[in-house]
């Protein structure tokens, strides 16, 4: 009976050891803007939680279109507060999507590589021939200012008339 207990303890110990060796690394990546356009600048922020100490974080980016991909770039991310960040300029006008993956170099010299690459679809660049408003903070409805101006002038005329009257 004692032997069985010892064996169970050893097995449990080994299981715990195994779990601690396979320390999980969780990466949460955020890309701004959500729907980037080709040849635009994006900000990539990686929130990384790992039991190991991180030395460097790299991001690999490949821009592609339907029938080809452009050679990938391996970029070092900068530590900003508790996250890793990079402002990256997408290069190709003709790209329709890009793929990225994160690689982490730990202080003990070991690596973590994301095997699965995440694909981000690029929003077709607007011709910008005219602003129809709606999707940008700076883009107000055309003519809206004119309505405000007319209302203000009418108000001034009305108050003046009342004063004169």
């Amino acid at each position: 009976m004692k032997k069985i207990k010892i064996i169970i303890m050893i097995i449990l110990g080994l299981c715990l050891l195994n779990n601690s060796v396979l320390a999980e690394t969780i990466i949460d990546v955020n890309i701004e803007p959500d729907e980037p356009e080709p040849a635009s600048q994006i900000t990539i922020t990686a929130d990384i939680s790992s039991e190991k100490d991180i030395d460097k974080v790299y991001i690999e980016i490949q821009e592609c279109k339907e029938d080809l991909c452009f050679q990938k770039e391996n970029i070092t991310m900068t530590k900003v507060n508790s996250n890793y960040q990079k402002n990256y300029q997408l290069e190709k006008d003709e790209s329709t999507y890009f793929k990225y993956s994160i690689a982490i170099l730990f202080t003990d010299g070991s690596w973590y590589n994301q095997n699965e690459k995440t694909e981000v679809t690029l929003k077709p660049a607007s011709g910008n021939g005219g602003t129809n408003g709606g999707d940008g903070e700076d883009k107000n409805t055309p003519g809206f200012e004119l309505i405000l101006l007319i209302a203000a002038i009418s108000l001034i005329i009305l108050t003046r008339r009342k004063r004169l009257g």
Partner: protein
Amino acid sequence: MKKNIFTILFLVIIFFNFLTGCFENSEEGDNFAFSTLNGDTKQLVDYRGKIVILDLWATWCSPCQYQMTELKKIYENYSRNDLEIISVDVDTREDAQLIQSFRNFFNQTYGIELDWIFGMDDGSISEKYMKEGAIPTLCIFDKKGRLSFREAGICVYLEIPSGFPANTTVLAHIINQLI
């Protein structure tokens, strides 16, 4: 007498130039070296006498995967005495094990065995042959190793599938001309 010597010298020079010209032409042709998946080093010159399609690719490149389905058609339609395909992974961070896993994945997922020559680049092949920094890039070398065709983007074997641009390059004509 002097005239004769000059004439003979002139003829000798012309004949020598002609010979060297012929010799250069026969030796003309590109060469590059790559590592195979089992660690051997192979060169383009090893395949002289055959048309060689050099396919520059990487495992992360989705269009390269489609290109391989077209390469498979070519590989099956031509004799090994006439044509060889060499797919060289241009991403120097990808190793033989990853490429082999990719081949296994391709076989399991699409039922297509990628059974031609696969290799890895040390950076020199992509520098020399990659077009516009894009993959897939296909290069076709004639039987003497001369670069006859180079294009970035998907090329098809014989028929342009629906949804592809009408100007998609069809390789069959190019290969048949070289054979």
